[in-house]
């Protein structure tokens, strides 16, 4: 099985050293600014002047571009295309191009661009966050700030369970195939072949839950003592200041929406 289960790239950089909560607040500030902030070009500016330079600061620019390119460009591109073609023509729009019965209008293209760039900010800010923040660090930091240990456990365990489930599913499929189950062929046949998979996968996982519970109890998971953390998570004055700054941005972004213009 692959050793790597997260997006996280371990590297020495000032962005990596920023407190996880600060980064999380920053991500939300970017998203809220992109969706609620003023100006048509704001989301694009956030990408060009915010997220991309930060990816260089975090020394993950290559991974950032690769992930954003593979994951995001096809989706955003498709979105842009559909929105510009199918944007409702309200009558007084300027037609840019006519394709068959569809009018591509200037308004449509503008709207599509804005939507696509907002989505781009949202997803790529998260990609940058995941590339530079170890999930354990985020969870330890949030637990220290009062998040329930059980909740943090559920989140990190879920992150890990997907590759395990995949591995188990492929073992079950192999076992079924070795007993003659045909998993190739038509779509219907393949869907049918999935059915015998669900029983062992689901029930097997349920049985495991009890053992897992015993195992973590055996390691004092429910201890009433105050937990400590292996990872030392920096939280400097600068972090605190940055969080206030981003919160202010968030408030301003909402404010700009509510302000009667």
């Amino acid at each position, binding site marked *: 099985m692959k050793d790597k289960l997260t997006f996280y790239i371990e590297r020495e950089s000032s962005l990596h050293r920023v407190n996880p909560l600060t980064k999380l607040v920053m991500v939300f500030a970017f998203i809220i600014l992109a969706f609620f902030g003023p100006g048509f070009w704001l989301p694009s500016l956030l990408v060009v002047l915010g997220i991309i330079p930060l990816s260089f600061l975090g020394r993950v620019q290559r991974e950032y571009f690769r992930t954003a390119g593979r994951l995001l460009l096809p989706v955003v591109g498709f979105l842009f295309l559909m929105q510009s073609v199918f944007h409702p023509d309200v009558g007084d729009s300027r037609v840019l191009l006519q394709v068959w019965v569809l009018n591509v209008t200037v308004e449509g293209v503008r709207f599509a661009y804005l939507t696509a760039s907002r989505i781009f900010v949202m997803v790529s800010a998260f990609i940058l966050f995941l590339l530079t923040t*170890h999930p354990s660090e985020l969870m330890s930091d949030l637990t220290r700030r009062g998040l329930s240990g059980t909740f943090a456990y559920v989140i990190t365990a879920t992150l890990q369970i997907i590759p*395990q489930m995949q591995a188990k599913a492929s073992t079950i499929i192999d076992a079924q195939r070795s007993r003659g189950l045909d998993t190739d062929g038509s779509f219907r046949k393949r869907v049918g072949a999935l059915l015998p998979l669900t029983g062992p996968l689901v029930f097997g996982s349920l049985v495991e839950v009890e053992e897992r519970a015993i195992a973590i*109890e055996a*390691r004092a998971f429910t201890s009433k003592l105050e*937990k400590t953390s292996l990872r030392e998570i920096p939280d400097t004055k600068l972090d605190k200041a940055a969080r206030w700054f981003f919160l202010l941005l968030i408030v301003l972004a909402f404010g700009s929406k509510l302000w009667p213009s």
Partner: protein
Amino acid sequence: MAIVNLQDVTYKYPLTEEPAIRNIHLQVEEGEFVAIVGPNGAGKSTLCYTLSGFIPHFFKGELNGTVEIAGVETQKSSLDEWVLNVGLAFQNPFNQISGSKFTVYEEIAFGLENIGVPRGEMKARVEAAMAMTAISDLADRSPYSLSGGQQQRVALTSILVMEPKVLVLDEPTSQMDPIGTREVFQVIKEMSARGMTVILVEHKIEWIAEFADRVIALHNGEILLEGTPGEVLTSPLLPERGFGISRYTSVARTASGQGLWPGDRRLPITLQEAVDGFARDRK
């Protein structure tokens, strides 16, 4: 004084008629290595859960008698306090991994984080425990990427790092290949050598013969035999009651029936004992 003290312990799982273990009297001295053998359904795992506090704190049901470890009674303690005295490791190494940690190092620190050990001490203890079980080289690996034997050693280390007084092991090698078994037994041997009290349920008779100070044979929830490995593991009662026995004992017993093994000589358990025993007659 005995560190483990069970007096007339009987336990019934919820919604069952028959007790899984009954009238168990068991004293284990500090530093002693006790092995428990028994066929399926003998109550071995139930006894392990009772010793490690999961009965009655995790599995409900009806527990009678007294279970006392290090002078504390299980009924008067809570599970999170109890596990600091008694460590439990069991068969499936995969399910013993916390599932929330990304490296072996973090995995081993998990228990210490839960009991609030300061970071400096935590690191020192994790590193010492990994050195002891010879897994220091796995520190940065994902717990999921390891072999069964490695995973089981990580699971054991995760318990050992908590420094329990008593270590309860429920068939820790049952899913291991011979290499994995050897690796795990090296760790158990090391623990025992360091004076830890070990209670081990195991089917691999030859390993028990090598390590255990005392063997308890459990049958239908009751203690059938108790004594040194030599006495218990060669008893003719065991095969009659469906216990697995060493193939060397079984061969020598057959040989004994044909006059090839003297009737007054103790039957062998390990290969070496069998070789020595048979070789003696050839001289």
